[in-house]
């Protein structure tokens, strides 16, 4: 387990590892000594928690390197927080861009594979390439999904009638 833990620590950015890896390892050794006396189930739960914690923590730290210091571990909770403004769905936008990039990469790969295949049968009629066969429906689907998302977002934005809005209005009236 110690070897796995060390390997998972490598997932963290180098600067973070330099600062915290030794400490984390020392704490994990203490935890390991602590759970050695416990039952198998408790040990398994602990190991799974540690693995998931490390993977989640490493993802958070890399995200933090990308998006800035405020995007790391959240200090602020969501309990008792009422947001009175409409927020643009950032996560959705990022996911959509990622999906678009993924599709573009897949199409590019498909093209490369199609180009690398040997054309040993000259008697056959010309066949449409992967690019020309796949691209139109994929682009069409993307346009439809983007349009549907945009329409939904516009409707929500125009209505501005969520419970949060009503609560904000109520609190404004009470003042």
């Amino acid at each position, binding site marked *: 387990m110690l070897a796995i833990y060390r390997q998972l620590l490598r997932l963290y950015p180098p600067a*973070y590892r330099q*600062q*915290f890896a*030794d*400490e*984390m*390892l*020392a*704490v*994990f050794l*203490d*935890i390991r000594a602590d759970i050695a006396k416990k039952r198998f189930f408790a040990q398994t739960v602990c190991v799974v*928690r*540690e693995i*998931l*914690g*490390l*993977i*989640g*923590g*490493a993802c*958070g*730290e890399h995200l933090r390197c990308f998006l800035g*210091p405020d995007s*790391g*571990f*959240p*200090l*602020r*909770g969501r*309990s*008792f*927080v009422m947001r009175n403004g409409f927020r643009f769905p950032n996560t959705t936008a990022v996911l959509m861009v990622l999906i678009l990039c993924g599709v573009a990469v897949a199409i590019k790969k498909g093209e490369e594979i199609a180009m690398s295949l040997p054309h040993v049968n000259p008697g056959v009629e010309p066949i449409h390439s992967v690019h020309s066969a796949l691209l139109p429906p994929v682009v069409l689907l993307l346009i439809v999904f983007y349009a549907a998302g945009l329409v939904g977002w516009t409707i929500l934005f125009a209505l501005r009638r969520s419970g949060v809005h009503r609560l904000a209005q109520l609190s404004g009236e009470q003042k």
Partner: protein
Amino acid sequence: MALYDMSRTAMTSDLPLTEPVLLILLSLAGQPQHGYSILKDVERMSDGRVVLSTGTLYGAIRRLLDDDWIERFDEEDASRGRQAYRLTQQGRRNLQLEIDRMKHITRLASLRVALKER
């Protein structure tokens, strides 16, 4: 009745705190602690409900260090890998604000529930 001075919350935009962060700060409120003792203290304070992994703990510690809520505390007999942490003034002030906010909510809730039961 001035139950709670809402203007005080404007001093920090980081309230309310997440439960792990609140428990970590509470753990450090009394005295400087090492990572493992923070983990055990958090577990004890929450009656075993909140059990942090090392990844989560050090994610929080990293953020609290960056925001200057806690600081490293150099002990004379500290061995390698056993770094202690303690609250800064800012961390203590923010913890106090969060406690005040929670007091306000519990007092308000008690009042409302008592009124309803009459």
